[in-house]
């Protein structure tokens, strides 16, 4: 299994990667920090990965997307699956006060992802097999006053993936939307933890299992499917008054 992981230094991606490493996968790790990528690469190698390569890039730099894809295809002579696991959790309040900030958030979490997906979709469609997995969020299921910039970005990606799924199904390519709930990772370091927070390990393992099973849309942990079903059905007039 030749796996491209974009955002490989994120906590969830690392945990998922550990599962793939135990299977002896070959992995191409993409991230912004060469030092962190190297640490992750060493870890995965010890854990059993047949081969690990790293590539440094900031996905906000759209010009570099094609080079990244060329690099992984050249290194591994093709890709079997891609996992998009990168993103930022910005400051909602800052975004409210600044157009630039909002656009930055949206670029990282939405438009850069769509750009990468455009390239990946064409590649996988061309070889008529493979799996594209993207971590969005339950926040994308309904706009909430406390994080709607993040939610909108993730929601847009989820919608895009829905359409892509339709297009890719005739090519035999799996398009997987992964929606984690609240997860205990460096991204949520500033948020007070409660019992509903899942561990990065649990979510990472959920990502691995969903990719192996070639699912379509998964909530991780699974009970979030039920929670969001309820959240989605609350009438707007009531929901707009909710404080969270």
């Amino acid at each position, binding site marked *: 299994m030749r796996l491209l992981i974009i955002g490989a230094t994120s906590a969830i991606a690392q945990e998922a990667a550990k599962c793939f490493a135990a299977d002896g996968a070959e992995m191409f790790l993409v991230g912004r920090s060469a030092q962190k990528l190297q*640490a*992750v690469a*060493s*870890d995965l190698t*010890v*854990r*059993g990965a047949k081969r690990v390569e790293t590539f440094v890039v900031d996905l906000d730099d759209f010009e570099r997307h094609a080079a990244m894809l060329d690099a992984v295809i050249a290194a591994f002579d093709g890709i079997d699956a891609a996992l998009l696991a990168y993103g930022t959790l910005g400051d909602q309040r800052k975004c409210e006060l600044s157009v630039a900030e909002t656009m930055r958030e949206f670029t990282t979490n939405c438009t850069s992802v769509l750009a990468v997906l455009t390239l990946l979709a064409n590649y996988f469609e061309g070889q008529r097999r493979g799996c594209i997995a993207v971590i969005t969020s339950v926040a994308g299921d309904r706009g909430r006053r406390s994080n709607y910039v993040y939610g909108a970005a993730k929601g847009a990606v989820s919608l895009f993936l829905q359409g892509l799924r339709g297009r890719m199904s005739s090519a035999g390519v799996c398009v997987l939307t992964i929606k984690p709930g609240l997860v205990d990772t460096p991204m949520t370091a500033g948020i007070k933890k409660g019992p509903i927070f899942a561990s990065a390990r649990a979510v990472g393992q959920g990502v691995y299992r969903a990719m192996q099973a070639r699912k379509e849309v998964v909530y991780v942990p699974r009970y979030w499917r039920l929670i969001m079903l309820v959240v989605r059905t609350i009438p707007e007039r009531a929901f707009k008054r909710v404080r969270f």
Partner: protein
Amino acid sequence: MLPYGFGRSYGDSCLNQDGVLLDASHLNRFIAFDEARGILRCEAGVSLEEILDIIVPRGWFIPVSPGTKFVSVGGAIANDVHGKNHHRAGTFGCHVTRFELLRSSGERLICSPQENTELFRATVGGLGLTGLILWAEFRLKPIVSPLIAMQRVQFASLEEFNALSAEADQRYEYTVSWVDILVGGTALCRGLFLGGNHEQAPSKLTARSGKKIPLAVPFDLPAFTLNPLTVKAFNELYYHAQFAKKVEKVAHYEPFFYPLDAIHHWNRLYGRRGFLQYQFVVPFDHGYDAMRDILARIRRSGEGSFLTVLKQFGHIQSPGMLSFPRPGLTLALDFAFGGQKTLRLLDDLDTIVRASGGAVYPAKDARMSGANFRAFFPRWQEFAQYIDPRFSSSFWRRVIS
């Protein structure tokens, strides 16, 4: 501040009341594994469980293992843990080639028996007080099978145990005994002596025994569950459960090394009042007399120890300044916490241990006095020089006052 791994120490050596704990659980990466020479380097927060999962399928084992695999490498070094093979392999610290220590000044120091030697010796068994271990490298031992060939023999007295141990320690890499100390009389104790060796016949190297015993104590049990009567009844059953005097069998290493790990939250058996662990070592000279006095004092108290473990420590010296194991007899006991009564009992035991030139194990301690600590660990002043000025623990503040 104080580094915190899995918090498996029984008392306050891993706590820092009113202070800061450095959560080392994020230091959980492997760095390098030299499969040819059997040398592993990993961050200090990696657990022995994760290590075994990786190394066993590739024909390697950890050189020294404590009674649980849910401990971090940093914790194994900080407590200089020992295992059933102390008489052959010494402590965990004996197998560490080097580690990197981060001090509060920001300094990062590579410590080994050759480099920053004194700091290395202070950190091994140093209870996390010298700084934060970032990563460590240690030697592994080769195995061809995950199985342990073991023998279990009944013994009816301490004298019989000593004779058994002297002979068995030559034949077996791993030895340990479960004992019943409520038996009284001149026998002092009776029990089951367990000896084991790595199976030499090659077989499939599996990290887990595969037996999923989903045992977990779901909540604190009522206080009367473990009391001297039930303990006595259990002891009787357990001692006689093995019908033959000597039993031989082959089993996976997992239940041999980590029987308690199979029961999650086993500490809840003691209920809300909890329990105190007490492990001591008394030197071989006067060892019999010291044991006799200790066991007599325990019997006088009417307290029973639910899980009592006895072993002979060997002569291999650890590099650690505050290392606990030394040649002699070591006994680990647990007592349901009954307030002052229990504390007085343990203070009396401390006195006997001290008089015989022995020591009490800090990793299990929650109440030893400063005076006794300083007697048990004569190199404490030498050690204190290497403590990081911004590091401290509840244990240290207690034993230094």
